[in-house]
């Protein structure tokens, strides 16, 4: 397995307040890594470190290193926009620009790549099929994107990120504001994506980790508390169900797995 991201001794701060400390982690190619943990634990800060979106916060500081495809993305002179093109991101609430469905989908690619109208339309159709929206929107591509349901908007937002052909896709709680059916559609989409790219998914729902994730990390109180493969997690969860410990408690109070993926990608036993 090849690592796309290697985080070494990574610590994040807002001003002097540490948000996340001592992270050593590898994120592997074409796998889905789920990031779980309670609210305010530092999940989103962690995610936004991977495409330098934290740069927008003036007080943000970082120590350690973040290697993306073997290049340090926080070194001086790094083209941040190039990193972001390769590491796409979708936010919790679907962001639709006040324009048509088609314009929203092609918002990035139309402005950043020199493509003809026909080529753009082909990309649009291909992407909309990939996110299972084509049949819903093919007759109303020029209608405002605001007319779509929340779930459809979120799929369109994912599609917009996919048009840039990223090698990693960061999803920050993409199903948090959606109903069950829309959430299922997104989960299905995520599972389909890992043939092409690496996905890092921040979520609150343990079930979602079990359904979609290959690996997981638990962030709590500014540290990675647990890490491992989802298969292990399911085994443990089944065991727990017998003894009747609620899912969530084990992550905040009981360290059952006690595992961490180290920088060589080996699942170890110790939490740093």
């Amino acid at each position: 397995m090849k690592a796309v991201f290697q985080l070494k001794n990574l610590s994040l701060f807002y001003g002097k307040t540490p948000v996340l400390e001592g992270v050593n982690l590898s994120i592997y190619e074409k796998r889905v890594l789920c990031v779980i943990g309670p609210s305010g634990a530092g999940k989103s800060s962690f995610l936004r470190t991977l495409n330098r979106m934290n740069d927008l916060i003036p007080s943000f500081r970082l120590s350690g290193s973040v290697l993306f495809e073997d290049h340090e993305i926080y070194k001086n002179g790094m083209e941040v926009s190039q990193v972001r093109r390769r590491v796409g991101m979708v936010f919790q609430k679907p962001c639709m620009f006040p324009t048509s469905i088609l314009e929203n989908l092609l918002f990035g690619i139309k402005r950043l790549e020199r493509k003809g109208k026909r080529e753009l339309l082909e990309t649009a159709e291909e992407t909309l099929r990939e996110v299972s929206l084509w049949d819903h929107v093919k007759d109303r591509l020029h209608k405002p994107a605001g007319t779509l349901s929340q779930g459809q908007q979120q799929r369109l937002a994912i599609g917009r990120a996919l048009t840039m052909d990223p090698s990693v896709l960061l999803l920050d709680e993409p199903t948090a504001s959606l109903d069950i059916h829309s959430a299922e559609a997104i989960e299905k989409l995520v599972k389909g994506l890992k043939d092409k790219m690496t996905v890092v998914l921040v979520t609150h729902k343990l079930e979602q980790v079990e359904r979609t994730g290959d690996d997981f990390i638990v962030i709590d109180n500014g540290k990675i508390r647990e890490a491992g493969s989802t298969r292990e997690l399911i085994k443990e969860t089944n065991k727990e169900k017998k003894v009747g410990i609620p899912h969530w408690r084990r992550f905040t109070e009981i360290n059952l797995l006690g595992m961490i993926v180290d920088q060589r990608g080996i699942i170890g036993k110790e939490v740093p």
Partner: protein
Amino acid sequence: MRRFKTFFFSLVCCVSAFFSISFLFLILSVIVIKGGSAIHWEFLTQPSRSIGQEGGITYQILGTLLLIFGAGLISLPVALGAVIYETEYLKPPFQKAANILIFSLNGVPTILFGLVGFLIFGLYLRWGISWASGCVILGVMILPTLVISIKEGIQTIPLIYREAALALGMTKAQVIRKVVIPQSFHGWVTGLLLGLGRAAGETAAILFTATAFSGVTLPQSFIEPVSTLQTHLFVLSQEGVGSVSLTHAWGTALVLLFNLSSLAVRFKLTWEGER
């Protein structure tokens, strides 16, 4: 007692509302009654003759339009550039300083714009009393109005729009061009209409710098003067001889008011469209 207080409070509010509205109607009705008879096709389409006693106000209407559009043309790009520099590139403490400076500009009495403008453009640059001087002076004068409105437009752009664009790999400059400027469109249209309204009503700043009273047609070059509705009205009402001049003055006032209130209504519509 509480009931009485509530009643008294609502009574005061009612009287204030009535007073402000009735004052508007008072102005409107006086101008319509006094100037209505002057308004006919020739008045609008013929040049002024015999020191405003005969003819109409064609060149005054065109002069006003020329001046305010010139001012808008100068002010809009400058204001847009200034706001973008301030909001996107300046660090917060400097932003505050820039804000204070812009607001101070708004507090400068307009006659000072006229005097300083005359000194700089009229005397040093030797533009004389000219259309160009007037445009620049009015352009600077309405700058704060535009800046404040555009800034409001930019500050109300949801952060998520910028984030979404940046996350797609756009550079800061691309985000400004593709997101910030188009998404603040309402802000700058509102600012422009408000600014133009202010420029169209302005007399003091252009009295010595841009306008001449009689014998003025359309300017043939940038350094020729124009004639405007507001200065025409000013001179006629001060120095006009005979009742025809005065009726013409009121007629001019009516046209000016019509221009301004149509700007105000457009502003209101834009503002409502934004909500």
